[in-house]
């Protein structure tokens, strides 16, 4: 298990984690509906600033944070061979 199965499955696990992680990173629907008070995720703040506060530059600046996180994440995933398992 540790020496054979896990290393073989690792690229697939990394590939799967790309989508789950990215979906979670930008989501504001779930926090609004089931998060209760004080659930301010990146997505919520961006959403509030575009829709309600109309502070688009701030929202855009904040939105670069998940872009950067995803870029780093994708680089690591590439090292693990995730793109061949996509």
């Amino acid at each position: 298990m540790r020496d054979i199965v896990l290393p073989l499955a690792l690229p697939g696990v990394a590939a799967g984690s790309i989508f789950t992680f990215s979906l979670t990173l930008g989501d504001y629907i779930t926090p609004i509906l089931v998060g209760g008070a004080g659930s301010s995720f990146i997505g919520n703040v961006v959403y509030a600033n575009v829709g309600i506060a109309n502070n688009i530059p701030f929202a855009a600046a904040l939105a670069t944070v998940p872009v950067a996180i995803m870029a780093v994440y994708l680089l690591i995933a590439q090292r693990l061979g995730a793109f061949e398992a996509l």
Partner: protein
Amino acid sequence: MEGRWTRLGLQLWAALVLLFLFVPILLIFFYAFNTSNIQSWPIPGLTLKWFSSTWEDPDVRTALGLSLQAGLMATALALILGSCAAFAIHRLTFFGREVVSLMFVLPLALPGIITGISLNAFFSFNGIALSIWTIVIGHTTFCIVVVYNNVLARLRRTQGSLIEAAMDLGANGFQTFRDVTLPLISTSIVAGAMLAFALSFDEVIVTTFTAGAQNTLPLWIFGAIRLGQRLPEVNVVVSFVILVTIIPVVIAARLTGGGGASRVPAAK
């Protein structure tokens, strides 16, 4: 390989995960038939009245129409662009092919809020008013990915010798495509279209940023839940959206053989 207890434990675990995923969804279906408009368990009785009141709600009807239109158009666009892209990546070798291939998949790997806000900024920068067309463009960005993945996976599994044989026997490029290539990849194209439509039909985040005053069905649900209005109707609409989304996905999984409908095999 595994002992009896390991097997039993895995089965139990899988069952728990499935319950965790699907019990809330089943609950929605029950609430859609609830006689009371207060959501509490157990439900006092069964009724169909919410179905008729939902069907007669003009807002829901408009939203349904818009969702269907946007879904169909985005699917059509994604079919053309996605399968063309898959053919280009499969047939041609050019500088930066792997990078281009990655960039086709990226819209699905980026958080929806990024796609949404960048499209929104792009449209307002160019003075394009938000309409059904901007929704279609937004949905197409990620619908392309599923079509592309499915068609490319099929092309990689298809034997090149079949196409070569057709060419050897005197078929021209168009004949080969119509009589050999297209029948070989047709199920993957249909599967890609089904998944694309399903994705488009229940998309909220990108839609929020690319829709103007219009409401698609998911946007209507989101708005109604947040305001706490018309919750019985929400249950009906949600049940409907779940069915419309699940059925194409099941068909797509059948067509591509097994559950991994959108995966691309490692073989190249």
